């Protein structure tokens, strides 16, 4: 884990008309790791991701993503990060191939490169037999897979996944987790994911950050958090955390 930090924030704060969404967040994510944001709904996970992408401006504080300031150069950051939002939609009357080539076009890829990447991405997410089907007819699980494929088209160094398993059945959830592990291992992708499900985060993430009401309460590898903060084993820690943040 002695690698350089790919994402760093310092005192990152976002205030939405009186309400503090993210409160002096200091965070660092290392190259190649899978980092999990854990916290109940409304803890500021999504807002943090949006600020790191340059989609919202922080009220105060600094952020650096791949040594670029997302507030100042959002386009540059957006080119390097793949983002999968929580409730994403698709253009229902396009088929999967058209959806992906649209993303490729927005990223300025040539047709040849785009076709190659679409092929690979569809294979990776297991949709290679559905490329000509209209996205409007896709099931929830398939849409989620297509979302990942969209992200892979960019071949990003960093992937932000906001609640990637939301609304998926156990099988699909398993599949998603295995895919995330695979991307991290084989593509050397840094993954930042947010979830309110502890056991998922625990399974794939190298390090976790627990957020409650906009504050980062704890940050580090699971075992270390368990030992240092509470002096218990991982299993007991899981139980305690679940009880504390009410999940």
């Amino acid at each position, binding site marked *: 884990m002695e690698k350089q930090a790919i994402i760093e924030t310092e005192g990152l704060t976002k205030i939405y008309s009186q309400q503090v969404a993210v409160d002096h967040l200091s965070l660092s994510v290392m190259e190649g790791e899978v980092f999990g944001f854990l916290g109940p709904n409304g803890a500021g996970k999504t807002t943090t991701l949006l600020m790191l992408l340059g989609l919202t401006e922080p009220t105060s504080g600094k952020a650096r993503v791949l040594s670029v300031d997302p507030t100042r150069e959002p386009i*540059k950051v957006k080119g390097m990060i793949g983002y999968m939002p929580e409730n994403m939609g698709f253009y229902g009357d396009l088929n999967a191939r058209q959806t992906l080539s649209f993303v490729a076009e927005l990223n*300025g890829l040539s047709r040849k490169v785009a076709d190659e990447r679409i092929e690979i991405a569809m294979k990776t997410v297991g949709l290679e037999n559905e490329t000509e089907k209209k996205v409007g007819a896709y099931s929830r699980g398939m849409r989620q897979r297509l979302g990942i494929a969209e992200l892979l088209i960019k071949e990003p160094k960093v992937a932000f996944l906001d609640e990637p398993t939301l609304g998926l059945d156990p099988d699909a959830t398993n599949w998603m987790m295995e895919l995330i592990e695979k991307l991290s291992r084989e593509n050397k992708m840094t993954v930042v994911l947010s979830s309110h499900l502890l056991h998922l985060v625990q399974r794939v993430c190298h390090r976790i950050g627990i957020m409650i009401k906009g504050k980062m309460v704890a940050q580090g590898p699971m075992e270390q958090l368990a030992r240092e903060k509470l002096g218990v084993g991982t299993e007991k820690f899981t139980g305690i955390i679940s009880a504390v943040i009410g999940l």
Partner: protein
Amino acid sequence: MILFALITMVSLIIAYMVGLGIREELAGLPGVPRYVFLMLFTSRGAVFSLVQFVAFFGPLIGLILGFDMINRERNEGTLSKLLSQPIYRDSVINGKFLAGVITISIMMISIVLLITGLGLRMVGVVPGSDELWYGELVFMSLSVLFTSPSGLAWPFFFPFCFGVLPLQL
């Protein structure tokens, strides 16, 4: 889609009725007066003239096209994905606007061309170059401007179009 079809249909019906009227009028006159051809657009059919019709329904189309072009993306959850791609926000908005303008241009141009053709056949008068130039082109471009889906632009063009068009023709 349905609205487009409806507007085209109504425009054609108006033009047809006006055309019939003009043909009758012309039969009783010794020569051909100036700007007969443009009367296709400006004289009343049963209830209203084509110009009035476009002035009334054009903005409606503009509004329908315009009012939720960004909101729809947001509601369907495609906006956040679109904005997380490395493109400028301006290009999203400009592209939306341009798409609306082009759609309306195609609609207006085809309606005017259809009516021109219909008029040629019915009235039997060939429009002079000044009629084509001032009448049809001005009518088309003003209508496009006027109808263009911009919540801000259309109140501005409303009096302008209403006042100028009938005078010009």
